[in-house]
Protein backbone atom coordinates (compact mmCIF):
# COMPACT_ATOMS: atom_id res chain seq x y z
CA UNK A 1 0.00 0.00 0.00
CA UNK A 2 1.64 3.25 -1.12
CA UNK A 3 2.26 5.71 1.71
CA UNK A 4 0.25 8.94 1.59
CA UNK A 5 2.01 11.67 -0.39
CA UNK A 6 4.34 9.30 -2.28
CA UNK A 7 4.02 9.06 -6.03
CA UNK A 8 2.43 5.76 -7.09
CA UNK A 9 5.32 4.73 -9.40
CA UNK A 10 7.87 5.60 -6.76
CA UNK A 11 5.96 3.61 -4.18
CA UNK A 12 5.97 0.59 -6.51
CA UNK A 13 9.72 0.91 -7.02
CA UNK A 14 10.28 1.15 -3.28
CA UNK A 15 8.11 -1.93 -2.83
CA UNK A 16 10.31 -3.80 -5.35
CA UNK A 17 13.44 -2.80 -3.40
CA UNK A 18 11.77 -3.88 -0.17
CA UNK A 19 11.00 -7.27 -1.72
CA UNK A 20 14.59 -7.68 -2.80
CA UNK A 21 16.33 -6.46 0.39
CA UNK A 22 13.70 -6.83 3.13
CA UNK A 23 12.65 -4.22 5.74
CA UNK A 24 16.15 -3.34 6.90
CA UNK A 25 19.33 -3.17 4.88
CA UNK A 26 23.00 -2.84 5.82
CA UNK A 27 24.63 0.58 5.67
CA UNK A 28 26.88 -0.56 2.80
CA UNK A 29 23.75 -1.42 0.79
CA UNK A 30 22.29 2.10 1.02
CA UNK A 31 24.43 3.49 -1.81
CA UNK A 32 23.55 0.48 -3.95
CA UNK A 33 19.85 0.87 -3.26
CA UNK A 34 19.90 4.60 -4.01
CA UNK A 35 21.69 3.92 -7.32
CA UNK A 36 19.17 1.19 -8.18
CA UNK A 37 16.35 3.52 -7.34
CA UNK A 38 17.73 6.29 -9.54
CA UNK A 39 18.37 3.90 -12.41
CA UNK A 40 14.76 2.80 -12.46
CA UNK A 41 13.41 6.33 -12.62
CA UNK A 42 11.71 6.80 -15.97
CA UNK A 43 9.11 9.16 -17.31
CA UNK A 44 7.96 12.30 -15.59
CA UNK A 45 8.95 12.84 -12.02
CA UNK A 46 7.50 15.38 -9.69
CA UNK A 47 9.44 18.06 -7.81
CA UNK A 48 8.74 16.14 -4.58
CA UNK A 49 10.21 12.94 -6.03
CA UNK A 50 13.27 14.82 -7.17
CA UNK A 51 13.78 16.31 -3.72
CA UNK A 52 13.55 12.82 -2.22
CA UNK A 53 16.12 11.46 -4.70
CA UNK A 54 18.50 14.27 -3.83
CA UNK A 55 18.02 13.67 -0.14
CA UNK A 56 18.76 9.96 -0.60
CA UNK A 57 21.79 10.72 -2.73
CA UNK A 58 23.23 13.11 -0.17
CA UNK A 59 22.47 10.61 2.60
CA UNK A 60 24.40 7.90 0.75
CA UNK A 61 27.27 10.27 0.16
CA UNK A 62 27.28 11.28 3.85
CA UNK A 63 27.37 7.65 4.96
CA UNK A 64 30.17 6.92 2.51
CA UNK A 65 32.26 9.79 3.83
CA UNK A 66 31.54 8.79 7.48
CA UNK A 67 32.72 5.26 6.68
CA UNK A 68 35.88 6.58 5.17
CA UNK A 69 36.57 8.85 8.17
CA UNK A 70 35.96 5.99 10.59
CA UNK A 71 38.28 3.79 8.55
CA UNK A 72 41.00 6.44 8.96
CA UNK A 73 40.60 6.13 12.74
CA UNK A 74 41.58 2.45 12.41
CA UNK A 75 39.03 1.07 14.89
CA UNK A 76 40.47 -2.42 14.34
CA UNK A 77 43.80 -1.12 15.65
CA UNK A 78 42.10 0.46 18.66
CA UNK A 79 40.53 -2.93 19.38
CA UNK A 80 43.53 -5.14 18.68
CA UNK A 81 46.45 -2.97 19.90
CA UNK A 82 45.62 0.15 21.87
CA UNK A 83 43.06 -1.17 24.35
CA UNK A 84 44.92 -4.42 25.20
CA UNK A 85 48.11 -2.39 25.59
CA UNK A 86 46.41 0.11 27.93
CA UNK A 87 44.96 -2.76 29.96
CA UNK A 88 48.39 -4.40 30.27
CA UNK A 89 49.92 -1.11 31.43
CA UNK A 90 47.23 -0.72 34.08
CA UNK A 91 47.74 -4.31 35.28
CA UNK A 92 51.45 -3.55 35.53
CA UNK A 93 50.69 -0.51 37.71
CA UNK A 94 48.69 -2.67 40.10
CA UNK A 95 51.48 -5.25 40.18
CA UNK A 96 54.27 -2.76 40.80
CA UNK A 97 52.39 -0.82 43.50
CA UNK A 98 51.62 -4.11 45.23
CA UNK A 99 55.28 -5.12 45.18
CA UNK A 100 56.37 -1.69 46.42
CA UNK A 101 53.77 -1.73 49.19
CA UNK A 102 54.89 -5.16 50.35
CA UNK A 103 58.51 -3.98 50.41
CA UNK A 104 57.52 -0.96 52.51
CA UNK A 105 55.54 -3.20 54.86
CA UNK A 106 58.51 -5.61 55.14
CA UNK A 107 60.76 -2.73 56.14
CA UNK A 108 58.22 -1.32 58.63
CA UNK A 109 57.75 -4.75 60.25
CA UNK A 110 61.52 -5.17 60.60
CA UNK A 111 61.74 -1.78 62.27
CA UNK A 112 58.86 -2.67 64.58
CA UNK A 113 60.69 -5.84 65.63
CA UNK A 114 63.54 -3.63 66.88
CA UNK A 115 61.26 -1.72 69.27
CA UNK A 116 61.88 -3.94 72.34
CA UNK A 117 65.62 -3.18 72.07
CA UNK A 118 65.06 0.57 72.26
CA UNK A 119 64.54 3.04 75.04
CA UNK A 120 60.74 2.98 75.79
CA UNK A 121 60.28 6.62 74.84
CA UNK A 122 62.06 6.14 71.51
CA UNK A 123 60.21 2.87 70.93
CA UNK A 124 56.87 4.60 71.42
CA UNK A 125 57.81 7.35 68.98
CA UNK A 126 58.96 4.77 66.46
CA UNK A 127 55.68 2.84 66.81
CA UNK A 128 53.77 6.05 65.99
CA UNK A 129 55.85 6.52 62.86
CA UNK A 130 55.39 2.88 61.83
CA UNK A 131 51.63 3.24 62.35
CA UNK A 132 51.68 6.16 59.90
CA UNK A 133 53.50 3.95 57.38
CA UNK A 134 50.87 1.21 57.77
CA UNK A 135 48.06 3.73 57.36
CA UNK A 136 49.66 5.23 54.27
CA UNK A 137 49.89 1.81 52.62
CA UNK A 138 46.09 1.87 52.36
CA UNK A 139 46.64 3.58 49.01
CA UNK A 140 47.52 0.31 47.28
CA UNK A 141 44.09 -1.21 47.80
CA UNK A 142 42.33 1.95 46.62
CA UNK A 143 44.62 2.35 43.61
CA UNK A 144 43.92 -1.25 42.64
CA UNK A 145 40.16 -0.76 42.90
CA UNK A 146 40.23 2.48 40.89
CA UNK A 147 42.32 0.87 38.15
CA UNK A 148 39.95 -2.08 38.02
CA UNK A 149 37.14 0.41 37.33
CA UNK A 150 39.15 2.00 34.49
CA UNK A 151 39.82 -1.45 32.99
CA UNK A 152 36.06 -2.12 33.02
CA UNK A 153 35.47 1.16 31.14
CA UNK A 154 38.08 0.14 28.56
CA UNK A 155 36.27 -3.18 28.08
CA UNK A 156 33.04 -1.29 27.36
CA UNK A 157 34.85 0.92 24.81
CA UNK A 158 36.32 -2.23 23.23
CA UNK A 159 32.83 -3.73 22.87
CA UNK A 160 31.50 -0.50 21.28
CA UNK A 161 34.39 -0.37 18.82
CA UNK A 162 33.71 -4.01 17.98
CA UNK A 163 30.09 -3.18 17.22
CA UNK A 164 31.19 -0.24 15.04
CA UNK A 165 33.55 -2.45 13.05
CA UNK A 166 30.79 -5.03 12.56
CA UNK A 167 28.21 -2.42 11.44
CA UNK A 168 30.55 -0.78 8.92
CA UNK A 169 31.99 -4.04 7.67
CA UNK A 170 35.27 -4.97 6.06
CA UNK A 171 35.97 -1.55 4.57
CA UNK A 172 36.59 -0.10 8.04
CA UNK A 173 38.61 -3.10 9.14
CA UNK A 174 40.96 -2.78 6.22
CA UNK A 175 41.45 0.95 6.46
CA UNK A 176 44.84 2.42 5.50
CA UNK A 177 47.55 1.78 8.05
CA UNK A 178 49.67 4.80 8.87
CA UNK A 179 53.12 4.21 7.51
CA UNK A 180 55.98 4.69 10.00
CA UNK A 181 59.30 4.50 8.32
CA UNK A 182 61.53 6.77 10.36
CA UNK A 183 61.18 6.91 14.15
CA UNK A 184 60.93 10.44 15.50
CA UNK A 185 62.25 11.48 18.92
CA UNK A 186 58.67 11.30 20.14
CA UNK A 187 58.33 7.72 18.89
CA UNK A 188 61.23 6.79 21.15
CA UNK A 189 59.40 7.96 24.27
CA UNK A 190 57.74 4.68 25.26
CA UNK A 191 58.00 5.00 29.04
CA UNK A 192 58.55 2.03 31.34
CA UNK A 193 58.27 -1.38 29.65
CA UNK A 194 55.93 -4.08 30.86
CA UNK A 195 57.74 -6.74 32.92
CA UNK A 196 56.96 -9.34 30.23
CA UNK A 197 58.54 -7.35 27.42
CA UNK A 198 61.18 -5.32 29.25
CA UNK A 199 64.80 -5.51 28.24
CA UNK A 200 66.88 -6.36 31.29
CA UNK A 201 70.20 -4.74 32.20
CA UNK A 202 72.21 -7.74 30.97
CA UNK A 203 70.65 -7.48 27.50
CA UNK A 204 71.28 -3.74 27.42
CA UNK A 205 74.92 -4.35 28.41
CA UNK A 206 75.24 -6.88 25.58
CA UNK A 207 73.69 -4.46 23.11
CA UNK A 208 75.99 -1.66 24.24
CA UNK A 209 79.00 -3.95 23.99
CA UNK A 210 77.98 -4.90 20.44
CA UNK A 211 78.78 -1.33 19.32
CA UNK A 212 82.35 -1.55 20.58
Amino acid at each position, binding site marked *: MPAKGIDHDLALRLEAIRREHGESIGVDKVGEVVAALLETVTGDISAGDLRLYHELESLASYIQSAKSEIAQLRPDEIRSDFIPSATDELDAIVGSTETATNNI*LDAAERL*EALSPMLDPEVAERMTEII*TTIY*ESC*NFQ*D*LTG*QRITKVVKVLKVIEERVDTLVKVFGAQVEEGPKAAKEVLSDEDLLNGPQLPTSATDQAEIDRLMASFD
Partner: protein
Amino acid sequence: MAVDKNINVLIVDDYKTMLRIVRNLLKQLGFNNVDEATDGSMALQMLRVGNYGLIISDWNMEPMTGLQLLREVRSDAKLKDTPFIMVTAESKSENVVAAKEAGVSNYIVKPFNAETLKTKMSSVLGDF
Protein backbone atom coordinates in the same frame (compact mmCIF):
# COMPACT_ATOMS: atom_id res chain seq x y z
CA MET B 1 34.26 -4.25 81.97
CA ALA B 2 37.68 -4.54 80.35
CA VAL B 3 37.82 -5.66 76.74
CA ASP B 4 39.29 -9.12 76.26
CA LYS B 5 42.11 -8.57 73.79
CA ASN B 6 42.59 -12.32 73.52
CA ILE B 7 39.47 -12.72 71.37
CA ASN B 8 39.94 -14.21 67.92
CA VAL B 9 39.54 -11.62 65.18
CA LEU B 10 38.79 -12.62 61.59
CA ILE B 11 39.83 -10.12 58.91
CA VAL B 12 38.46 -10.56 55.39
CA ASP B 13 39.86 -8.82 52.32
CA ASP B 14 40.87 -9.87 48.81
CA TYR B 15 43.93 -7.58 48.89
CA LYS B 16 46.76 -9.35 50.71
CA THR B 17 48.46 -6.04 51.53
CA MET B 18 45.25 -4.82 53.18
CA LEU B 19 45.09 -7.97 55.33
CA ARG B 20 48.68 -7.32 56.34
CA ILE B 21 48.01 -3.67 57.21
CA VAL B 22 44.94 -4.47 59.33
CA ARG B 23 46.76 -7.34 61.06
CA ASN B 24 49.69 -5.02 61.95
CA LEU B 25 47.37 -2.29 63.21
CA LEU B 26 45.45 -4.84 65.34
CA LYS B 27 48.74 -6.08 66.74
CA GLN B 28 49.64 -2.52 67.74
CA LEU B 29 46.26 -2.27 69.48
CA GLY B 30 47.08 -5.45 71.41
CA PHE B 31 44.97 -7.95 69.43
CA ASN B 32 47.30 -10.79 68.45
CA ASN B 33 44.87 -13.61 67.65
CA VAL B 34 44.10 -12.69 64.09
CA ASP B 35 43.06 -14.96 61.21
CA GLU B 36 42.65 -13.99 57.56
CA ALA B 37 40.25 -14.88 54.76
CA THR B 38 40.31 -13.60 51.20
CA ASP B 39 36.56 -13.60 50.48
CA GLY B 40 33.19 -14.10 52.14
CA SER B 41 32.80 -17.81 51.48
CA MET B 42 36.23 -18.64 52.92
CA ALA B 43 35.40 -16.47 55.94
CA LEU B 44 32.07 -18.23 56.46
CA GLN B 45 33.74 -21.65 56.52
CA MET B 46 36.26 -20.40 59.10
CA LEU B 47 33.54 -18.77 61.20
CA ARG B 48 31.48 -21.98 61.29
CA VAL B 49 34.32 -24.06 62.72
CA GLY B 50 36.08 -21.36 64.76
CA ASN B 51 35.24 -19.09 67.65
CA TYR B 52 35.57 -15.46 66.68
CA GLY B 53 34.81 -12.38 68.76
CA LEU B 54 35.05 -9.86 65.92
CA ILE B 55 34.82 -9.81 62.13
CA ILE B 56 36.46 -7.00 60.15
CA SER B 57 35.50 -7.35 56.50
CA ASP B 58 35.94 -5.63 53.17
CA TRP B 59 32.83 -5.32 50.99
CA ASN B 60 33.99 -5.72 47.37
CA MET B 61 35.20 -9.33 47.03
CA GLU B 62 34.44 -12.34 44.85
CA PRO B 63 32.79 -14.80 44.88
CA MET B 64 31.08 -13.77 48.13
CA THR B 65 30.98 -10.06 49.00
CA GLY B 66 31.24 -8.60 52.48
CA LEU B 67 27.52 -7.73 52.44
CA GLN B 68 26.58 -11.32 51.57
CA LEU B 69 28.88 -12.54 54.34
CA LEU B 70 27.19 -10.16 56.78
CA ARG B 71 23.75 -11.48 55.82
CA GLU B 72 24.94 -15.09 56.23
CA VAL B 73 26.41 -14.27 59.64
CA ARG B 74 23.25 -12.54 60.83
CA SER B 75 21.06 -15.45 59.72
CA ASP B 76 23.22 -18.11 61.41
CA ALA B 77 22.08 -19.02 64.92
CA LYS B 78 25.64 -19.54 66.15
CA LEU B 79 27.18 -16.45 64.53
CA LYS B 80 24.37 -13.88 64.56
CA ASP B 81 25.66 -11.87 67.53
CA THR B 82 29.28 -11.62 66.37
CA PRO B 83 30.34 -7.95 66.04
CA PHE B 84 30.90 -7.14 62.35
CA ILE B 85 32.79 -4.07 61.14
CA MET B 86 32.74 -3.31 57.41
CA VAL B 87 35.96 -1.70 56.14
CA THR B 88 35.44 -0.60 52.57
CA ALA B 89 35.98 1.97 49.84
CA GLU B 90 32.22 1.84 49.13
CA SER B 91 31.19 5.14 50.66
CA LYS B 92 27.85 5.95 49.04
CA SER B 93 25.03 6.50 51.49
CA GLU B 94 23.02 3.66 49.91
CA ASN B 95 25.91 1.30 50.74
CA VAL B 96 25.93 2.37 54.37
CA VAL B 97 22.14 2.03 54.57
CA ALA B 98 22.26 -1.46 53.00
CA ALA B 99 24.96 -2.55 55.44
CA LYS B 100 23.06 -1.11 58.39
CA GLU B 101 19.88 -2.87 57.29
CA ALA B 102 21.83 -6.13 57.03
CA GLY B 103 22.98 -5.66 60.63
CA VAL B 104 26.51 -4.23 60.42
CA SER B 105 27.93 -3.17 63.79
CA ASN B 106 30.05 -0.35 62.42
CA TYR B 107 31.38 0.99 59.13
CA ILE B 108 34.86 2.28 58.23
CA VAL B 109 35.62 3.97 54.91
CA LYS B 110 39.01 3.35 53.27
CA PRO B 111 41.52 4.89 53.49
CA PHE B 112 41.35 4.83 57.28
CA ASN B 113 43.78 5.42 60.11
CA ALA B 114 44.62 3.49 63.26
CA GLU B 115 42.64 5.90 65.43
CA THR B 116 39.45 5.33 63.42
CA LEU B 117 39.92 1.56 63.64
CA LYS B 118 40.39 1.81 67.41
CA THR B 119 37.34 4.07 67.85
CA LYS B 120 35.07 1.80 65.81
CA MET B 121 36.34 -1.31 67.59
CA SER B 122 35.70 0.38 70.95
CA SER B 123 32.16 1.16 69.87
CA VAL B 124 31.39 -2.52 69.33
CA LEU B 125 33.63 -4.19 71.93
CA GLY B 126 33.79 -1.50 74.64
CA ASP B 127 36.55 0.94 75.52
CA PHE B 128 40.15 -0.26 75.56
